[in-house]
């Protein structure tokens, strides 16, 4: 007999009671058998949803006989609460099981490659140069710049290179002709001075920037400059184009011991605080006293107690020549209009290529300018 057909309140109460029993007996199994939350909620709706069995019966409570209404209403409400509680417990259980399943499932194939992100990088020469400039900038040096194609005057004359002097042999020079104005005019050029001497060249060192900056500014000056330089050399250790870094400081009272202090600090900041550094006399026309700096060989590291006797880089000596330096020559100050009695200064130059090769263990300078992607991607 169907409840909707029950007109009689007593019969209805009977049906109501039976329905409560049926629901109370049915939901635990139905809930337990629901495989997931979706099915569970569907089961719950079958009992307690807007058109669920319990809901439907509860809507008919007013029709119940007054004497049983209270009792049956209480039972119905209790059942509803039990259903609700069972539902939320079961949901929790299901979620817990789902999480457990999620966490105990198969492993990801972590060996598959990562999705490609192109990795850009600066050329190892740029990385090294930046590192060197950073050290000097932190000490208070400004960074300056100068042209690659230079006047003979700035590359040699004002730096105190005597004309027809063997000192220029140390820097075998490329001379150039510069065509007038229009780029399409080609080579018919200017480039020789009145005496027929070639007067425009590819700078052989960045010391040109010394002259340009000293002409442009007044002391105190502390400047570094890095860039391409050119000499007519081409072998395993010489590239016809190479990167040099030049620095100089001019002020009242600048001394050789300060030159030693700055360069020692520079090398140790780059290569490590235990690096041995030694200074010995040498000759460059634009400094006096002039010197060269050797540092402990960072390839064999014999100064850290390693065996360096067969080191090919330092030839077992434990020392590597790394810097040229000296006190700015008075003729240079005179060439830029500074009073050499009042001002003194030091200057130094270092091969960025050489430091790059030492830092990364690069054996052949040609690799630096070959731009092979397989090489560049190593840095």
């Amino acid at each position: 007999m169907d409840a909707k057909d029950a007109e009689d309140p007593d019969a209805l109460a009977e049906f109501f009671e039976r329905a409560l029993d049926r629901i109370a007996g049915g939901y635990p199994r139905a809930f337990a058998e629901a495989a997931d939350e979706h099915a569970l909620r569907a089961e719950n709706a079958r009992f307690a949803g807007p058109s669920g069995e319990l809901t439907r019966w509860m809507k008919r409570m007013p029709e119940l006989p007054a004497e049983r209404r209270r009792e049956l209403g209480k039972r119905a409400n209790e059942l509803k609460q039990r259903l609700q509680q069972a539902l939320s417990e079961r949901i929790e259980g299901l979620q817990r099981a789902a999480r457990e399943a999620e966490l105990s499932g198969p492993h990801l194939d972590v060996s598959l490659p990562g999705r490609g992100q192109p990795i850009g990088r600066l050329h190892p020469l740029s990385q090294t140069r930046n590192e060197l400039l950073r050290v000097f900038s932190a000490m208070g040096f400004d960074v300056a710049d100068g042209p690659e194609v230079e006047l003979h005057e700035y590359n040699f004359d004002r730096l105190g290179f005597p004309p027809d002097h063997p000192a220029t042999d140390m820097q075998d020079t490329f001379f150039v002709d510069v065509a007038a104005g229009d780029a399409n005019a080609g080579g018919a050029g200017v480039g020789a001075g009145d005496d027929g001497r070639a007067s425009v060249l590819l700078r052989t060192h960045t010391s040109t920037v010394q002259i340009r900056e000293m002409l442009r500014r007044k002391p105190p000056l502390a400047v570094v400059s890095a860039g391409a330089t050119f000499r007519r050399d081409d072998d395993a250790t010489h590239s016809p184009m190479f990167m040099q870094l030049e620095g100089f400081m001019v002020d009242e009272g600048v001394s050789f011991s300060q030159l030693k202090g700055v360069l020692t600090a520079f090398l140790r900041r780059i290569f490590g605080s235990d690096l041995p550094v030694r200074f010995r006399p040498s000759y460059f026309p634009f400094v006096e006293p002039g010197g060269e700096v050797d540092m402990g060989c960072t390839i064999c590291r014999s100064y850290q107690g390693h065996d360096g006797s067969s080191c090919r880089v330092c030839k077992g000596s434990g020392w590597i020549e790394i810097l040229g330096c000296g006190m700015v020559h008075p003729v240079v100050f005179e060439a830029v209009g500074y009073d050499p009695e009042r001002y003194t200064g030091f200057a130094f130059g270092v091969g960025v290529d050489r430091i790059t090769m030492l830092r990364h263990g690069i054996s052949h300078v040609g690799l630096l300018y070959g731009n092979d992607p397989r090489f560049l991607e190593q840095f």
Partner: protein
Amino acid sequence: MRASHRWLEELVGAELDPGEVAVRLTGAGIEVEDQQSVGEGLEGVVVAEVRGRRPHPAREKLQLVTVFDGAGESEVVCGASNVPEAGGRVLLAQLGAKLPGGFEIAERKLGGVVSRGMICSEVELGIGADEGGIVVLGDDVQAAPGTKVAEALGLYDVIYELGLTPNRPDCLGHVGLARELCALLGHDFRWPALQPVPALLAPGELLPQEQALFSLGLEAQASVQGGAHGFAPVRVEIDEPERCPRYGAALVADVTVAPSPFWIRQRLFALGMRPINNVVDATNLILLGFGHPIHAFDYDRVQGSQIRVRLAAEGECMTTLDGEERRLRGDDLLICDGERPVALAGVMGGENSEIGDETRRVLIECAYFDPRSIRRTAKRLGMHSESSHRFERGVDPGAVPRVLSASAALIASLAGGSVVEQGLDMHPRPQSPRRVQLRSERLERLLGTKIDTPEAKRRLEALGCSVSVEGEGPAQQLAVEVPSHRPDLGLEVDLIEEVARLGGYDAIPTELPSIRPSEAGTSESIRFVERLRDAAAAAGLSEAINYSFLSDRELSDAAAPAASVRLRNPLSEERSVMRTSLLPGLLSNLGRAQRQQVQRFAQFELGRVFVGSVEEAGQRLPAERHELGVLLWGARDAWFAEGEVADFYDAKAVIEAIVRRVAGLPIDTVLDSELEAERALHPRRRARIQVGGAAVGVLGELHPGVVEAFELGGRPIYARIEVPALAAQLSASGPARARELPRFPAATRDLAVVVDEAAAAGEVGAALREAAGELAESVVLFDMYRGDQVPDGKKSLAFHVTYRDAAATLTDKKVDKVHAKVMQAAEKRFGASVRR
């Protein structure tokens, strides 16, 4: 230059430790680059006496020689033709000896006879250049059979390889090096004693009395009269006193030209010179000893008994000792006899007056020539000789009489003969000694450390300076007279270096200075270039650094502007002009990468190009401008995205990323008429890059012609940014301005428009945006579709349009109303059918 340790010991007059010599010289600026021990490794080679010899039974050219090595006799097969008779002494490599080059002596059968050792030549032992036969010891070697060869011949030595700087000509000889070592080690320096001369000619009529004469000061073992030798008086004329400020000459008669004794040949050989004959060897020994080149003429071939120092006539020719005919210019200095040039002054002698086997009388020249003049000639003719190397650095003009005396004595003692007692010394331009003041206060201030005045004086005196102390206290100074062998010392700072050098730079303390910061700091243009470089790397590109020079052909292959800077003396045609574009370098890199089967290429270069010119200091320099070049080719770097290659839009994204990072500005890519000039790019696949409405570069696929010229595969994409143009946009816009973040939600609607294939998506998007008015926050293309449901010749473009009101939450009603307007506008403007 090479230097012999033993020779230095002789000159210093003390035993020296080679390791210490190397350290001290290097520490004083005379770099010892290498040192080689001589005489070691010949332990199994001994002096042996020939006891007998007989023909080989089977081989005509071989002999069987019985030798006594001090312990016993053995028979050795020998192929040399100069095996001495019994009693002669030879050098025997005993069984087990190892010769230079690794050859080990063992019993060998030669033509059926067992040879128990080997009789050696100079070349086989690595002790000389004589290949003429085995070494036969002469009377000058006193050594009993069994004596080790190195001991018997005095071979033990250390040869230093020195890297001398051009300011130190005084160290281009052993005497100068010895002087330096004495100063460093605290010994007293003494000039070497002269060789006693076998015979001396009284001058008689042999030299013209009116010319400057001096006594050679030689100690004679015999004396003869001059007249009997029939000399015509030698006469020297100097037409060019500026170029030849001093010229000395001496005469040696009755010489016998022959090979030098072993010790001389060996010494020259060890120092890298080829022994020739006793007279020539003597001149070379003087050169290596005093560092002063001298020249020996066969006096009988000097025409007219006359020497004249003059400039060459333009186009005049002479044949130098090396057999080369030299065409001269009016700037070249010549030594001539009465008729013709006999030497290219200071560079090389002439063939016509060369010392030969028949030479009987020798005219010795010892001069001082102007360094610049010698250098110009040597450099122009490409004749770098031991002589020019020294003259162009500056020999000691004060040493002429001393060197001349030593030369005459050495030649006479080696080749016999008689020296004319007096020498000629023409000195038309005597130089007075240089005097330089050294202020004690300046010394301390420049070095940053105090060196006591007496110590400074001692160091300078050790170098040959005459020094006196003047003044007291802060005004104290040293008055220094510089010796003529140090042309490099002319200023106070030069003396400061000498004082510092002798004490060693390591003795100067280190100090960190306070560096005063400048107001301007590093310029913005330099910092911008570095930011751009970082941004390009951050966008996924690898930086390339190519040579700034390349070939005309590479420029024209890359359709770049013709070069305007041309090297006069390039190393090769491949590197003969300065680049006008970064493209050829990047393309060459790509070509090499493709040949190496590299799959993906994404490089940039940020460097200078040389186009046009500027005036500076009255001269023309090229305009140097920074450019950024980007070249993409090959596989996209994506997961398993096989077959996907980078195209125009990848490059556009890269440029966009770079520009946004450095300037915070968006880019536009547009077509303009000036793109016609970009001949390197595909005419249908290229665009102008604009930032803030200004052109800053170009972007596009490479022209197929360029791809072909560089033998490339695929479709590389190139982008170029002109750095100054981009920097100008940045400085115009200033740093990016912050916008307030929206407080109200946005509403997004999509729409797709079907438009003609030729319509530009950018223009469609811009039109939509315009129609949407202020409420549109963004219009973003998210799909482009051709195919089903889209007619031929059309494409469907789908956009997200995002609406937002900054002041209120938008209602659907309001958004729908605006969006409807947008759709209408699209239909009207493009005749488009709009799909929702």
